[in-house]
């Protein structure tokens, strides 16, 4: 992004050569037979943009020939797509930069979408950066909001800047497609509707395996059992620097245990080594959207806020009445987290006992 402020209202005419670029595309990312949920989150967002523009929404599936890739196309329709572009080739069985970049750029050149959205995952970022450079177009990373500027039909992409202390809106005026990546869990997942359908357009990759230099020797799945799953947790109890010392963090774990919740943390606590990096919530950590988020001893700077703002209900405990977290929490408690956390644990325990008794 260019760090030069632009004029507020620009007179803008799209190059007639680019006027043929129509439609919104969402890259359907998959690995080991699973579509990454971020693709369906983006499909919901893509649907909104396509409706604002009055154009079609398409999914893009690159994968091995067969039933599975077809099924991914169907799922794309269920999540809101009008049609799906399918490139099926054995070469595309596993993600590799070179064939996926060629496949995606060929599709863009052949069918000319005006907007292309990808998940900001290791795969999506690898592909997006390569495709944007090959196509010589603009790409905005890690967007938190996407909309259409009614004045010129261009996409306005908002993202945090300066280490998450401010937001900026970025546009790509005279280049197409306009590309953006969005992190997992930033956009809400839309309802799946299995009655939807749409057409599938197949396009060949046109490469042979021997021409591709990089080979996948093996895929080693992570050991899942001991990895915290913050992104999809319904209840999260988080602690920050206000917990004072690592021993006090046990109070967070105690409450989480009663609630069957995941434990989260703010950046300073992770940097101090009190909890694992996987538990960091915020711009440089995980984005979460639980039904209940309890924040104890977290002041709530933007860096943390962008990671948990979408929670349904936020209870904040802080001894500083001016802590920024009280500006956006649902309920605020000014006080000592070391006495309030055990009281909450006990109150929730009683609630659970009452529910159990009532059957």
């Amino acid at each position, binding site marked *: 992004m260019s760090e030069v402020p632009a004029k507020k209202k620009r007179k803008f005419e799209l190059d007639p050569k680019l006027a043929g670029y129509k439609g919104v595309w969402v890259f359907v990312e998959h690995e080991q037979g699973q579509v990454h949920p971020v693709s369906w989150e983006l499909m919901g967002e893509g649907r909104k943009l396509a409706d604002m523009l009055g154009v079609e929404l398409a999914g893009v599936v690159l994968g091995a020939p067969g039933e599975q890739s077809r099924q991914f196309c169907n799922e794309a329709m269920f999540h809101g797509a009008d049609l799906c572009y399918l490139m099926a080739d054995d070469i595309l069985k596993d993600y590799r930069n070179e064939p996926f970049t060629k496949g995606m750029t060929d599709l863009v050149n052949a069918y000319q979408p005006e907007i292309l959205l990808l998940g900001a995952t290791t795969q999506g970022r690898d592909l997006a950066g390569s495709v944007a*450079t090959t196509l010589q177009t603009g790409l905005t990373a890690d967007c938190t909001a996407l909309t259409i500027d009614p004045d010129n039909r261009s996409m306005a992409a908002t993202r945090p800047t300066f280490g998450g202390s401010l937001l900026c*809106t970025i546009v790509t005026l005279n280049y197409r497609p306009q590309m953006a990546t969005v992190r997992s869990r930033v956009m809400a997942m839309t309802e799946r509707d299995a009655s939807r359908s749409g057409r599938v357009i197949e396009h060949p990759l046109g490469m042979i395996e021997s021409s591709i230099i990089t080979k*996948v020797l093996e895929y080693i799945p992570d050991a899942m059992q001991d990895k915290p799953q913050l992104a999809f947790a319904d209840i999260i109890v988080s602690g920050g620097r206000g917990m004072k010392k690592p021993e006090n963090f046990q109070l967070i774990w105690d409450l989480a245990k009663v*609630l069957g919740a995941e434990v989260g943390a703010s950046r300073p606590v992770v940097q101090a080594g009190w909890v694992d990096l996987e538990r960091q919530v915020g711009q440089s950590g995980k984005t979460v959207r639980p039904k209940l988020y309890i924040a104890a001893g977290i002041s709530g700077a933007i860096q943390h806020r962008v990671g948990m703002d979408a929670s349904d209900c936020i209870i904040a405990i802080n001894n500083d009445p001016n802590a920024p977290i009280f500006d956006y929490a649902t309920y605020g408690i000014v006080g000592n987290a070391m006495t309030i956390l055990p009281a909450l644990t006990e109150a929730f325990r009683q609630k659970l006992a009452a529910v159990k008794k009532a059957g």
Partner: protein
Amino acid sequence: MHIVVCIKQVPDSAQIRVHPVTNTIMRQGVPAIINPYDLFALEEALRLKDKYGGTVTVITMGPPQAEAALRKALSFGADDAILITDRAFAGADTLATSFALASAIRQIQKNMPVDMVFTGKQTIDGDTAQVGPGVAKRLDMQLLTYVSKIVSVKAEASEIVVERRAEGGVQLLKTSLPCLVTVLEGNNQMRFASMPNMFRAARHPLKVWDKDAAGIEDITKIGLKGSPTVVSKVFAPTPKSERAEMIEVESGDPRDVAITVLSKMFTRFPVVEKEIAKRA
């Protein structure tokens, strides 16, 4: 083996503050550091040099002050350093930046072939992770992003095997040199600068390249002109329309506070009550 490491000088974002009234960035006094993610790339390059021999060249594109970042990199053990600086680069987005860096690396290749280019996975100021892939595409190098481990390098066979972080697992990839590697954080730790290297770094004749020296002829590809993306506005996040409802009880007893907040929450958010009831 010749490894070029691309680094960037960035403001230490942990120390950036926003002015509470004007909502503008307070840059004064914010120290400039080497992008922390780039240090993992530099250390990995230095380790390969320790193991296989060769040369490590660090480059950066930035204002003249970025010289400090290069001298720091020399003190850690890099052999040579090039500062790519020109007013014409101002306002570059990631596409224009990758064009300039790729041109400079082509110039380096004229003197000594480059086997690998290393970068950090992203910077802490831009956070885009786009420049590495961009440089690889422009140089037609194989791209290996989010590399958590370099398993083996066989220079004579021009072959490298790495572990690459994927979603839900790790890909073991084999490819040919030359390649561009973006190094994942946390798998090594930057060494301390040795006394001889610190002296050498202070005296080292730094190469300073303007756009011509970097081999750039087409100025429509650099700086603001070469940047498809434009920032239309920068703003502070709006506070939510309603502040938190503050829970205060007369007794001041934490138990009463807890019971009050739960009953209020269950009334307003039946979805939370349902979620908790599931756990009974």
